[in-house]
């Protein structure tokens, strides 16, 4: 059955038009701006849910815009696209609430929210991209739309971070671009879907490997894999909502999402699973996992620590994709959502701590558990999830990754996961300890800054929601609506005939 082509387009446009409107608002039009923002996000989420419903009913939504010369811009909604688009739309909603509160009283808010919406537009476009060209277009668009947010504060440090960000991402974008064009020249339009684009083609192996590494290299930049991860910790100078949504969810996820499309939809796992391709990718991912954790250990700045944690955690997803096999891939795709929920909670909490009490370093957390029990509970849940402890979502992904590693005979994955879990504990437990058990030195108690009540609530509710979702995603992972179940659907499509994935 064919559904309307308008639906995928309106999912993308709902945030785009919002963003454009917001650009032209005056600074003091707080209510109108917030209304536009929120209605845009709610509309987008509603449309996404409608899309989800439609796809569940068996409709196929495809939007095709011929660009001429045999190039098409295609937006479509397959289960994988839905997973990502729902994640970004849902988190955009909570982040918008958070950001409205967070940015209260700071300059250039119209610009901020304008670009914020554009970023989500790009992310949605990446999610719904139906072919490689469309993916590349939105992938690059994301780079451009994010830069203004990274440098938003306008300080020297922010501008330097912005420069670093651009150097890395534009460099990566170029690699992806070359790879995509090369492949396009060889086999024509590269459509995404359960049937790999390269299936049945007969290209020289050397060319295949070269293209794979051009594209994977480009994607690895946004996925912050070692050694091209340097932009991510630097970009943490951005305001907290930006770090939360973009550097923990949208931008970095775009990279790993692309890796999945590359391995499964472009190459096909049978072709891609070779020592020269996914084999090396898996090793790089493993190195990144451990490296990120080790670096996080040394950071005393909370946001920096979280950033390196992101570097590490993202490569879980890359690792799952690279290891291949149904179970590891399920784990990877589930982690796509799980990590997003957990990391956004952590950044929300970090931002709230910084805003309300001026806390930026780990040691400054002393005694905050008693003052802000709800925030710190959310933080704790997410942190425990990051360590992979049940019943938080992170446990589920880790479990599946391990099962997947064993399934394909890559037993070394267990060692990586264990090393990472221990290191995660080593860098997440100290902040928890300090927050809950330490008592601040006399006179050094964190002082609450006065702020309007709605701001306070606006900073509190989003992390509570996301933490609850992270908890729920793990605790009821067996339900058919969980990210895990959805990941199983996606993977089952790729491994046709449907093999019942063992838990």
């Amino acid at each position, binding site marked *: 059955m064919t559904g309307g082509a308008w639906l995928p387009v309106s999912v993308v446009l709902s945030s785009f038009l919002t963003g454009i409107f917001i650009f032209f608002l005056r600074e003091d039009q707080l209510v109108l701006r917030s209304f536009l923002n929120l209605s845009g996000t709610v509309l987008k989420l509603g449309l996404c849910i409608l899309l989800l419903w439609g796809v569940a009913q068996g409709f196929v939504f495809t939007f095709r815009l011929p660009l001429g010369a045999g190039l098409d811009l295609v937006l479509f909604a397959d289960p994988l696209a839905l997973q990502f688009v729902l994640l970004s739309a849902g988190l955009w909603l909570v982040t918008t609430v958070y950001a409205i509160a967070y940015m209260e009283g700071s300059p250039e808010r119209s610009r901020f929210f304008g670009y914020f919406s554009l970023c989500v537009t790009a992310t949605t476009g990446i999610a719904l991209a139906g072919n490689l060209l469309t993916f590349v277009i939105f992938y690059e668009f994301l780079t451009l739309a994010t830069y203004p947010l990274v440098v938003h504060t306008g300080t020297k440090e922010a501008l330097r971070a912005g420069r670093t960000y651009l150097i890395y991402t534009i460099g990566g974008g170029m690699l992806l671009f070359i790879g995509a064009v090369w492949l396009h020249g060889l086999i024509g339009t590269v459509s995404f879907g359960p049937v790999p684009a390269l299936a049945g083609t007969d290209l020289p192996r050397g060319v295949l490997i070269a293209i794979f590494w051009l594209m994977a290299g480009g994607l690895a930049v946004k996925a912050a894999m070692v050694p091209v991860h340097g932009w991510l910790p630097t970009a943490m100078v951005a305001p907290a909502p930006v770090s939360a949504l973009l550097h923990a969810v949208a931008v970095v996820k775009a990279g790993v999402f692309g890796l999945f499309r590359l391995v499964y939809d472009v190459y096909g796992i049978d072709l891609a699973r070779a020592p020269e391709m996914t084999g090396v990718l898996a090793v790089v991912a493993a190195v990144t996992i451990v490296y990120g954790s080790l670096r996080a250990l040394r950071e005393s700045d909370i946001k920096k620590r979280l950033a390196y944690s992101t570097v590490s955690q993202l490569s879980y997803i890359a690792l799952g994709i690279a290891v291949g096999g149904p179970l590891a891939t399920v784990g990877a795709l589930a982690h796509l959502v799980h990590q997003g929920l957990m990391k956004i909670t952590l950044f929300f909490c970090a931002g709230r701590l910084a805003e309300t009490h001026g806390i930026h370093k780990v040691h400054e957390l002393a005694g905050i558990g008693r003052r802000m029990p709800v925030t710190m509970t959310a933080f704790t849940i997410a942190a425990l999830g990051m360590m992979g402890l*049940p019943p938080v979502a992170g446990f589920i992904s880790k479990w599946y990754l*391990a099962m997947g590693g064993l399934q394909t005979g890559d037993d070394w994955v267990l060692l990586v996961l264990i090393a990472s879990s221990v290191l995660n504990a080593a860098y997440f437990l100290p902040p928890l300890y300090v927050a809950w058990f330490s008592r601040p030195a006399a006179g050094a108690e964190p002082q609450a800054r006065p702020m309007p009540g709605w701001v306070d609530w606006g900073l509190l509710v989003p992390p509570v929601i996301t933490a609850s979702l992270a908890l729920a995603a793990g605790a009821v992972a067996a339900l058919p609506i969980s990210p895990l179940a959805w990941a199983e659907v996606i993977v089952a499509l790729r491994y046709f005939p449907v093999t019942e994935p063992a838990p």
Partner: protein
Amino acid sequence: MTSFALLLVPAAPLLAALVAAVVPAHRAVAAAVGAVPAIVIALIAPDRSIEVPWLLLGAELGTDDVRRPILLLAGVLWLLAAVYARTYHRHDPRSRSLFVFFNLTMAGNVGLIVAFDAVTFYLFFILMNLAAYGMIRHVGNAEAGRAGRVYITLVIIGEAFILPALWLGASGAESLALADVRAAIAEHPSRGMIAGLLFLGFGIKAGALPLHVWLPLAHPVAPTPASAVLSGSMIKAGLLAWLVFLPLAEASLPAWGLAWIILGLAAALFGAAVGIVQDRPKVILAYSSISQMGLMTVAVGLALAAPAALPQAASAAILAAVLYAVHHGFAKGALFLGTGVADHAGGSARRWALVLMALPALALAGLPPTTGLAAKTALKQAAEVAAPAWLPWLEPLLAVAAVGTTLVMARFLVAVARHAPTADHAGGGLWFPWSVAIATAMLLAWLPVAAPGQLIPAALTPAALISATWPVAVGAALAVIVLRMCRRRTVALPFRVPPGDILALEEPVIRRLVSAGRAPLRRLSVVDRSMDVAAHFLLVRARAMEVSVGRLEKRMTAWPIIVGAFGALLLTIAIFTHFG
């Protein structure tokens, strides 16, 4: 109904934790109520499991012969500890957080007992371990801080051993049900490694020998009710884990069984030896727990070594382990609660307390007609069936351990007696739960112990009675002699064994390792910085290039050069067009 009740077993303490956090006024009642479903299920539930398909990856809860006694033990101990804590923490300004942790730990403890699948088991195990940190750390002084640090480090290390074992098992089983996992481990090509991982991982909780260091640190600093459940119930989780994960009846691993037995015996003797030279009552009890857990480890080893062809051998050993666990749990719980009472009692009340305290102490030593007799008999029976070849050296060593236990108990009683009370009125709030605890240790503990019919007759044979009594007698006699000697002149030991014994040796090494690791860790950031340096270098080069670009561009604006370039280009194109 049953399924609902089974769900309540972990759910009730979780709700109690919520109550403790939100309405602190009812925290103690909530905690006590939280333990009730566990007791009820342990007493009434038939052997039945229920599926909870929506939980985690699909959970299964239930009880069976192995779990029910341990569940009963856990339920009762937590209930008593909750009642006890109500008074004990009456004036504690931070009792709210203690009760939150208390209830969470309880949820973990009872939850893991009823878990029938690996993930749920792991969930509750981790919950118990992490929440217990809050209780250990509760006092907040430096000693508690150190104990907490050691504890949490070992928990994390333990997790690093447990998870791969679970993964290997579950992957082989393609199922999460513990029965399947166990069967898969039995068949697994690297089942030896899995057994080793399980020993290390759960051995930390069970206080197995090289991993026991946290116990003597944690027990004295934890609040008394917490110590009681810690030693009485929680460390049994490690034992239960062995029982449910190891392929005890399915496969025979004699080599691993022997290792288990040797390590268990070593722990039994070592714990007793170190316990004797300690002087703080709760430290002595902690070492006693290590020693007793060693005996249970021996039982697990016997089950592991039992020939696969002889399933009744394995079940005898399992039975022994369970009985020992129940017996020890009740008795140790009572003893720990007793330290708190003695600490708060003066005058005649104190004398009564000491007398009452002797009851569970004797039970631990195994004096007939306490549960200790039954437990020890069961252990010996298991040894006879499962590993007759090893019996000749096993039996004397067990006897030595029994002597040691008696001595440790004697040392404990003396230490309690010498310990000056910090308050002189305990009140009913402590006395009541404690006396109930003693009663349960002496009476209720028989309930699970007596259930297997043939055990009591076997324990009441004269031979069994004698072999159970003489170590106690010897131990008592030795204790009296030593006491006498000490009364005449102070005996100064030539050495002191600090609580946590080998930890004192390990800590400097670890500290050195950590500080040695810091430098390479710092060097790691060079990877990040090298990219920056490269970029900077490029920028400098680019600046230099910019200057020369500017110079050249300026030169190109000179007219002779423009016209020259024009001519040269004209020539080039003409030549290429002509000669190509």
